């Protein structure tokens, strides 16, 4: 295809390109995981975007941890802090609520996405809020808040640069920290030019200059901050002992959304609580260094109350909506509970070789990458989200990078076991544990075909005689093996069995098969 330099395109041609990207995204979301992954793998510019970003972010994190021993101590502490929160979760949540309330912040609880959206909608309605400006919040993506509000006539504008661009494109974020990571400059330039409008109604001129792009978006969004009826934000950490909501950001839009409008609604998963401020600095440094390779972000924003008498700005009302949405069930699962240690830094996906090649949208979920593979089936059920579990080579780069030591590969494997568990309806004497210690949709991915394969495999491999017979057949018949065998041989040659197995060669060499009793071999030599 002849490459057309982009500047020569007319506005309507650019709009067509942007529309096509939107269509491709929507189309991709309709398909199943493998198809999405394949589409991403074949999209060269997408792969370039993700690989470049991964390399960049991995390098930035590495530069932030020059001393390996200190890094490990810091990770130990991060793990300890998060586990402490989880070990005392109900008490800390009650203490958080009590102190927030004493400070004048209203606390609400929502069990699932729908009631959470309803709650927020009610608060907005009670305050006649028609326009909302949003700070970055993954949990509001998770509960699909924007969609819910827009259906009910409330304008909900994202203000984080990446989220704003993704919203213009009518897509979803492809990374939990850098939402527009899948778009290059040219794509963003076309997007701004064809879909953004200045507050005076004029068009945004086409430009690939990053400073200009940011400047244009800044001008548009400043107007919105000024006039919005309400601001909705996420929460990075909620400090129980003082009743304080902490937000981490570089842009300033988080401060804007929590300062300029009269009403501020903060939304948080129930796992984000920490006990007191002594735990905050180490968690913060782990977060910023792991996420974007910064010692600290531009702003660390600590909010403890609405506007007090005598103060000249700040929201008159502040609300916190605590969202469960599957988290209490994760909490009840012995092996999967560490899922809740997550501080949403994104390091796992930055280090994941699968994510680097298929990008965030292929997962078809709010959270992509390794943490996405762990969290999504637990929130939405294995039936709908179990397919992504096989998209992992268990290489462990994610677990190695996790600042709070979540054993991600172990959790992914555990979810695979849940996905094919035969005991869906089995009620044992321990039946209460059974209900608690399981994932929604347990067994949904178990198939007759695969379970037969593993049963057959087990039969062959637990009977040494049968096993040795099989390996003999393999070695004797090695030249008869087909040259093509499924997915493997599409890109690789067929490996050939050796003429004699190690079992045979070892026997011929005269090696004993077991120690002779009384040989004292457990002693050490020399």
């Amino acid at each position, binding site marked *: 295809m002849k490459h057309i330099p982009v500047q020569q395109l007319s506005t309507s041609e650019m709009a067509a390109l942007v529309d096509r990207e939107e269509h491709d995204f929507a189309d991709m979301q309709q398909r199943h995981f493998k198809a999405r992954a394949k589409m991403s793998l074949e999209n060269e510019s997408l792969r370039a975007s993700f690989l470049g970003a991964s390399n960049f972010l991995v390098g930035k994190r590495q530069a932030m941890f020059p001393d390996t021993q200190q890094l490990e101590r810091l990770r130990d502490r991060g793990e300890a802090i998060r586990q402490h929160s989880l070990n005392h979760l109900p008490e800390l949540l009650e203490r958080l609520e009590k102190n927030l309330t004493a400070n004048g912040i209203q606390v609400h609880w929502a069990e699932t996405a729908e009631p959470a959206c309803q709650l927020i909608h009610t608060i907005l309605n009670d305050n006649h809020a028609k326009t909302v400006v949003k700070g970055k919040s993954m949990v509001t993506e998770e509960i699909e808040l924007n969609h819910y509000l827009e259906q009910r006539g409330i304008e909900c504008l994202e203000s984080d640069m990446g989220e704003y661009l993704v919203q213009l494109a009518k897509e979803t974020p492809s990374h939990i920290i850098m939402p527009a990571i899948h778009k290059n400059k040219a794509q963003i330039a076309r997007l701004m030019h064809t879909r953004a409008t200045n507050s005076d109604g004029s068009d945004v001129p086409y430009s690939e200059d990053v400073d200009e792009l940011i400047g244009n978006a800044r001008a548009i969004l400043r107007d919105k901050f000024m006039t919005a009826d309400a601001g909705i934000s996420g929460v990075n950490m909620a400090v129980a002992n003082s009743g304080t909501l902490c937000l981490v950001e570089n842009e300033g839009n988080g401060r804007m959304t929590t300062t300029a409008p009269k009403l501020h609604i903060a939304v948080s998963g129930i796992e984000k609580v920490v006990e007191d401020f002594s735990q905050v600095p180490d968690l913060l440094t782990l977060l910023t260094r792991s996420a974007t390779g910064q010692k600290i972000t531009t702003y660390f924003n600590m909010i403890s109350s609405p506007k007090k008498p005598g103060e000249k700005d700040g929201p008159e009302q502040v609300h916190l909506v605590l969202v469960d949405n599957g988290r209490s069930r994760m909490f009840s699962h012995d092996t999967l509970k560490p899922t809740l240690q997550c501080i949403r830094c994104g390091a796992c996906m930055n280090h994941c070789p699968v994510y680097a090649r298929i990008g965030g949208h292929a997962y078809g979920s709010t959270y992509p990458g390794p943490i996405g593979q762990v969290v999504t089936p637990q929130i939405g059920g294995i039936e709908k989200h179990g397919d992504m579990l096989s998209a992992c080579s268990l290489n462990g780069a994610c677990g190695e990078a996790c600042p709070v030591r979540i054993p991600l590969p172990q959790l992914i494997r555990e979810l695979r076991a849940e996905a094919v568990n035969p005991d869906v309806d089995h009620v044992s004497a321990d039946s209460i544990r059974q209900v608690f210690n399981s994932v929604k949709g347990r067994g949904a991915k178990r198939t007759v075909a695969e379970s037969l394969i593993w049963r057959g495999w087990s039969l062959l491999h637990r009977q040494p005689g049968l096993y040795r017979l099989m390996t003999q057949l393999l070695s004797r018949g090695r030249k008869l093996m087909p040259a093509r065998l499924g997915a493997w041989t599409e890109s690789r040659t067929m490996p050939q069995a050796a003429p004699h197995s190690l079992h045979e060669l070892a026997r011929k060499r005269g*090696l004993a098969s*077991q120690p002779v009793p009384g040989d004292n071999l457990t002693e050490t030599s020399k």
Partner: protein
Amino acid sequence: MSSDNRDTGPRSARHYPARPKAVYLLGTCLVDSFYPQAGMDAISLLEREGVEVIFPQQQTCCGQPAYNSGYDEQARQVARQQLAAFAADIPVVVMMGSCAAMLHHDYPRLFAGEPEEAQARALAGRSYEFSEFMVNVLQLELTDNSRQPLTVALHTSCSARRSMRVAEQHKALLSSLSGVQLVEPQRATECCGFGGTFAVKQGDISAAMAKDKADNMAATGADMIVSGDCGCLMNIAGTLEKQGRAMPAKHLATLLWERSQ
């Protein structure tokens, strides 16, 4: 207090026993059928150090394929066979990093709450990846008796690197051969895409990763690829061969024995 976790990085260092009189050799099912010479060469190396090698004919497979697919019951059935085959209280030298990790880290989990739990833990505690046994228990010293200089590209599998943490041992063994020049490819720590059943279940993604690893290996210009894991070897070598740029690929034990004879 938290202790070692297979999946999240370095913590306490492993304690190694004194040099034993005898060891079990756990060949692994891939070595058994596809790289048996690696097993034989490891036996030669061990015997030359004065260690008796016992090779249980009842051994089959560590059970990892079923375990990684979530078929725990079938994995346990096969793992029980290995508990029986390696029952005596002597060290087990495991010929692949991924199988070593299965025994050392996952057997205790697999048998948690089962009657064989204590036995599984005991076996886990005395299982060693090949290179860690050679370096940390035997303090192996090698003389390079080959006249031919050789450039070798090392691939340390993800299990060997992150679970068993033996990347340094791999390098140490190769570096001790005076005629061998060791090179590491670009993006050495990135997965080659094998991942066991991953290569079959997500063939497209696996192939993309394998292609990148093959490119990086070929770019080293090395004479040969060496690894402590045969799945990776089959994956990388098979990809290069299909692309028409085959490179010789050997298990670490084979190279060590060939060079030091």
